């Protein structure tokens, strides 16, 4: 069974991490806003995606 990115060790959605990853993002927006809806960065693939996505490289977060 393949789980969602939400629980994957490669998925980073901490707001402080997101704001540090995109300098300038907090100048006119915020990683703490509703519109982000939990989206984060897959550090393995370098993409920004929803926590409900999934892929075969899933590794459960420790």
């Amino acid at each position, binding site marked *: 069974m393949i789980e*969602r990115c939400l629980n994957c060790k490669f998925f980073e959605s901490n707001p402080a991490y997101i704001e540090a990853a*995109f300098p300038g993002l907090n100048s*006119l927006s915020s990683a703490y*806003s*509703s519109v*982000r*809806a939990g989206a984060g960065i897959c550090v393995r693939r370098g*993409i*920004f995606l929803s926590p409900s996505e*999934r892929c075969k490289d899933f590794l459960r977060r420790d």
Partner: protein
Amino acid sequence: MAGEKKKSSTDYCETKECADEAPSKPQAMGWKEFYLKEDWWAIYLGIGIVLVSLIAFLNGSTIIKSLAINPGGLKWSSLDQLLGHFSQNAHLYALQLFSWLVIFGVSTRIMGIKTSQFIPSFIILYLLSIIMFSIGGWVDAAKYNLEPPLVALLIGLVIANVVPLPRWMDSGFRVEYFIKTGIVLLGATFPITLVVSAGPVALFQATVISLITCLTIYFIATRVFGLDKRLASVIGVGGAVCGVSASMAIASSVKAKKEYLYTSVTLVVVWALVMIFFIPFVSRSLNLNAGVAGAWVGTSEFADAAGFAAATAYGRMAGNENAAIQGFTLMKVIGRDMWIGIWSFIFALISCLKWEKEECGVKPSAMEIWWRFPKFVIGFFIASFFMTAITAGYATPDFNKLVKPGLLLPIVSLRSWAFIFCFLSIGLTTRFRELKAAGWKPFGAFTIGVLINVSLGFFLSAFVFGSYWMNLGK
């Protein structure tokens, strides 16, 4: 390896088989959203302040009126006069700072921001805000175009780009949190009848501008410059709807490379800063009606925070701040912001059904529209409806003599504080050296979209719907 299925070209496993195997979990954060997202906290704080103000007003207490003190309306002409005001009211300013620290400090702590970082940076922000209000309260401020929103932004930019402020100080410079709280407070002085009467016009104008700007940027980026369609969609919606916030929403809907989102952040920040100064000064040179200029800002500025800075600045220049803010709010907050979720859903569908085809295993849900909805707008509507209902029972003389000075003006003052915190924070968090180089092609596509947006926004605001916007603020 023998027996192993070949992976897709994107290395995703989103085949139909995967989709069938995957557990169905909702994407939304569930109850956590109510205490981890600043949109909800902006509602709690804004509505809370309105309720406390109302209770104090009904009981004849002046505590909120005292706490809402600011030096912006002093019209001081000598430093002695200004210093005299502060020495006489030092206890009120101390109490006010303490109150802001408690409500913002506790709420940001719950959201996960370190209090040890928030407190010192917010104290600096508060002291700078007092200076901004004081500049605005100078008797000759208007003569020299010293509008507090623009001055706050400029001083913030200078400090952030000259003084090496440590990055942890951003913990106290919460641009979006402050503007959202201010918008909910704005709802308390915004008649719901105005939303009902002018809302449909705003929604129609927003629909026209959103569609044309997004499609222009998208097609120029893909057809003329040959850019990746995911990058085109991220910058297209960023330019058409709500800047960085919309870019974030679309980037996650289409699973964009993180560089694409970073590119969009740079483009939006740079053009939003340009528009904060461009639209007010062009409006002034054309002697535009404040409501019309507010609607233009709402149509063509990229972010709520930047737009409020521009609209407030021009409203003060034109002598009708209320009209400019009303025009902006109707167009941007009620009109364009609604499109974030809709575009997210549309692009998620396109991405899934057209770009990925067989690889798409996570079927987009129409609930995306709600998940991406900027929830603080709900607080604006609640405050507007509630206060309109409360104040409707007062006859005009009583309203002007009692309700306005005792209830509404203190709320307006607290809103001004939230806005000035925001305008300063925009400058203080914008470090040009940290912005990513966007590349000429994305810059070109976005800039063409900006030019069309600004021109069309002016045409719609001044000519097509000008008669509606001119009636604001009366």
